[in-house]
C-alpha cells in the first residue's frame, strides 16, 4: 500500500517537474524564435525622395547613413546631405504638440529635400515620397555582426558575438581559476586535513556556496576591482578578468566537492596497492589518484562551466558591462545572462528587443543544456577493483 502511494507521489512529482520545465522551455522558445522572422521595424515604412534612384537599402546602409558614416553619393544616390526622419528624432523638426496642419506641413516640406530618408508609420508618411525596400535578415543581423545596440533607432544592432565572446572570456578565466584550485583543495582536504577539521571545512564550503551572489559581487566591486586596477594599471578594474576570478571563486565549492567525492570513491585496495609498490603519498596522488579520477574531473569541469556561464549578478556588477568585442581579458565585457538581466526589464513585451533577449536566452539554454548533457554522457561508469 505504502509502496503504491510512494510510486504515485513520485509520478506526480515527476509529472509536475516535467510540466513546469516543459512549460518554461516552451515559453522561452515561443518568445525567442520569432526573432528569426520578425523585423525590428514592423509597422514602419521606409521612404525617400522620388528622384532618389536607389531601389533598396540594406539595414547596415540605413544605420551608416543615420550615423553619418556614409553618404548618399557613396551608395550611388543623390548628391545631397542625409536628412533622416524617424519617430525617435521627429522632435528635432517639429514638436509633438504642434497642431496637426503644421505637423503635416513640416513633414511635407522635409519630403522635398533630395537627401531625405523617412522611417515612419504609413499614416505619417508624406504623399510625395517613394517607398524603399529595406530587407531584414534575422540570421544575418544576429550572427554576422558583433555590434550590440538593440534599442538604436531607427534600426537596432543585435549581433550576439560580443556577448558570446564576453561569456567565453569570463567562463575561460573562471575555469582557469576553479579547476586547479578545486583539485588542489579537494586533494588537500582528502589527503592532508586532520579528520577533526574536515567537518569544519565542509561547513565552510557550504556557507561559501550559499552566499548570495550579490554579496560576492559587492565584495568584488569593493576589493577585487581596485586590486585589478592597480596591478594592471588600468583606468577601470571592471574587466573580464575580474568577473572570471570572482566566478571561479564562487564555483570553487561545487568543483572541490565533486573532485573530493571522486577521490573518496577510489577503492582503498587500489590505493594500498600503490603504497605497497613503494609509492610515496605524492606519487600515489599524482600517478594513481588523479589519473584515476580524470573522467570525474572532466565532468566536474563541465558542470562548473555551466554554473559559471549562467551566473548573472556577479558579472553584472564587476564585468564593466560593455558589449564590446574584447580581444583581451583586461577589457570590460558583457555576458549573455548579464545582458538579459540588465535589459529585459526595459524591453516592451512583444517588441523586437524583447524577442531578441529571449533569443539570447535560447542560446544560453542550449549551451548549458549541452554542457550538462555532455557531463552526464561521459560521467564515469562505476569501476570495481
Amino acid at each position, binding site marked *: 500500500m505504502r509502496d503504491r502511494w510512494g510510486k504515485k507521489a513520485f509520478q506526480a512529482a515527476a509529472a509536475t517537474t516535467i510540466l513546469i520545465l516543459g512549460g518554461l522551455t516552451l515559453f522561452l522558445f515561443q518568445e525567442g524564435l520569432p526573432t528569426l522572422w520578425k523585423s525590428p521595424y514592423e509597422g514602419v515604412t521606409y521612404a525617400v525622395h522620388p528622384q532618389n534612384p536607389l531601389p533598396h537599402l540594406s539595414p547596415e546602409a540605413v544605420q551608416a547613413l543615420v550615423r553619418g558614416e556614409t553618404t548618399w553619393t557613396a551608395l550611388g544616390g543623390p548628391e545631397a546631405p542625409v536628412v533622416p526622419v524617424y519617430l525617435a528624432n521627429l522632435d528635432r523638426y517639429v514638436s509633438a504638440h504642434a497642431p496637426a496642419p503644421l505637423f503635416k506641413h513640416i513633414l511635407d516640406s522635409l519630403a522635398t529635400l533630395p537627401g531625405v530618408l523617412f522611417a515612419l508609420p504609413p499614416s505619417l508618411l508624406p504623399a510625395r515620397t517613394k517607398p524603399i525596400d529595406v530587407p531584414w535578415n534575422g540570421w544575418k543581423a544576429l550572427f554576422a555582426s558583433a555590434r550590440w545596440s538593440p534599442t538604436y533607432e531607427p534600426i537596432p544592432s543585435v549581433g550576439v558575438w560580443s556577448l558570446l565572446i564576453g561569456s567565453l572570456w569570463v567562463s575561460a578565466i573562471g575555469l582557469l581559476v576553479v579547476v586547479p584550485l578545486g583539485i588542489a583543495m579537494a586533494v588537500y582536504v582528502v589527503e592532508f586535513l586532520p579528520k577533526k577539521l574536515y567537518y569544519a571545512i565542509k561547513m565552510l564550503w557550504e556557507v561559501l556556496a550559499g552566499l548570495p551572489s550579490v554579496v560576492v559581487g559587492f565584495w568584488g566591486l569593493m576589493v577585487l576591482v581596485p586590486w585589478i586596477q592597480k596591478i594592471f594599471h588600468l583606468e577601470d578594474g571592471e574587466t573580464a578578468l575580474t568577473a572570471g576570478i570572482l566566478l571561479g571563486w564562487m564555483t570553487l565549492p561545487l568543483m572541490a566537492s565533486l573532485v573530493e567525492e571522486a577521490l573518496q570513491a577510489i577503492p582503498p585496495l587500489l590505493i*594500498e596497492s600503490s603504497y605497497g*609498490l613503494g*609509492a610515496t603519498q605524492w606519487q600515489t596522488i599524482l600517478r594513481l589518484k588523479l589519473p584515476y579520477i580524470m573522467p570525474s574531473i572532466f565532468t566536474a569541469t563541465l558542470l562548473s562551466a555551466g554554473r559559471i556561464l549562467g551566473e548573472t549578478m556577479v558579472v553584472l556588477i564587476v564585468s564593466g558591462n560593455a558589449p564590446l568585442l574584447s580581444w583581451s581579458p583586461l577589457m570590460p565585457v558583457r555576458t549573455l545572462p548579464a545582458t538579459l538581466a540588465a535589459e529585459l526589464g526595459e524591453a516592451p513585451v512583444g517588441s523586437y528587443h524583447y524577442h531578441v533577449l529571449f533569443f539570447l536566452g535560447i542560446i544560453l539554454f542550449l549551451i548549458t543544456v549541452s554542457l550538462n548533457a555532455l557531463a552526464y554522457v561521459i560521467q564515469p561508469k562505476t569501476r570495481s577493483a
Partner: protein
Amino acid sequence: MYKVEAHAVSVWYGDHQALYKVSLQLERNQVLALIGPSGCGKSTFLRLLNRMNDFIPGFRMEGKILIDGEDIYAPHVDPVHLRRRVGMVFQKPTPFPFSIYENVAYGLRLQNRLKESQIRERVEQALRQAALWDEVKDNLKKSALALSGGQQQRLCIARALAVRPSLLLMDEPTSALDPISTAKIEELIHELRQTYTIVIVTHNMQQAARISDVTAFFHMGRLIECSRTKDFFTNPTHPETLRYITGRFG
C-alpha cells in the same frame, strides 16, 4: 639468519588489542601460510611486514619484527623503501586503470632510475615470472581492466615482482577467483618459492596444506601453533588447532 623474525609482537587499534605477543621465524625461500578464523589477526600480522598498518588511525605496536635481520620498525627505516623490498598482493585483483604494460611498470617508474629499455625488460621478465607473458605479450597496450579476474591477479603479482622484492606478501590472493584461476595461482606460488620467500594468508586449509612449507594458526589475536605444514595437519600439538582443522569451529 632468518628471513623474517617476529619477537613478542603485540598490536593495538585504539583500545582494541589485535595481536598478543606473537613470535615466529621464517627461513629464506619458504612459504608461510597464515590461517585462522576471521578476525583472528592473521591479516594484521601480514600487514605488519610491509608496515601497511601504519595508515590505520590508532595503530600501535610493541615487540620487534626483523626482515633480513633489520628491525623494520626502527625509527630510521623509511616504510617507502621497505615496501620496495616487500611486495604485496591483495584479496581482490587491484589493477590500475592503465594499460597492462603501465601497470607492471608502475613500481619501476616510481624510482626514476631506469631507462625505458630497462623497464621494458623488467616488465617482460615480471610477466614471464607471473606466467602471464604468453597471454598478454601481443596486447601490452590494452587496458588491464579488460583482463579476466585470474589474469588480473597474476598481473598484480607481476606488478609486485617487477620491483624485485625479496619477500612477497599475499592476502587471500585467490579468494575472489574461480577454481581454475586459483589452481594457476597456486602453481605460480610453487614456482616463485625458488626465488622468493612468501607469506600468504588463506581462508582455505587445503590451500595452506598444498602450497606452504610452514603453517601458522592464529586465534583471537594469539599465535596458537606454528610448525612444518606436514606436521601441522597430520599431528597438531595444540587441541585448538585440531578442533580448527577438523572443522569444529571457524
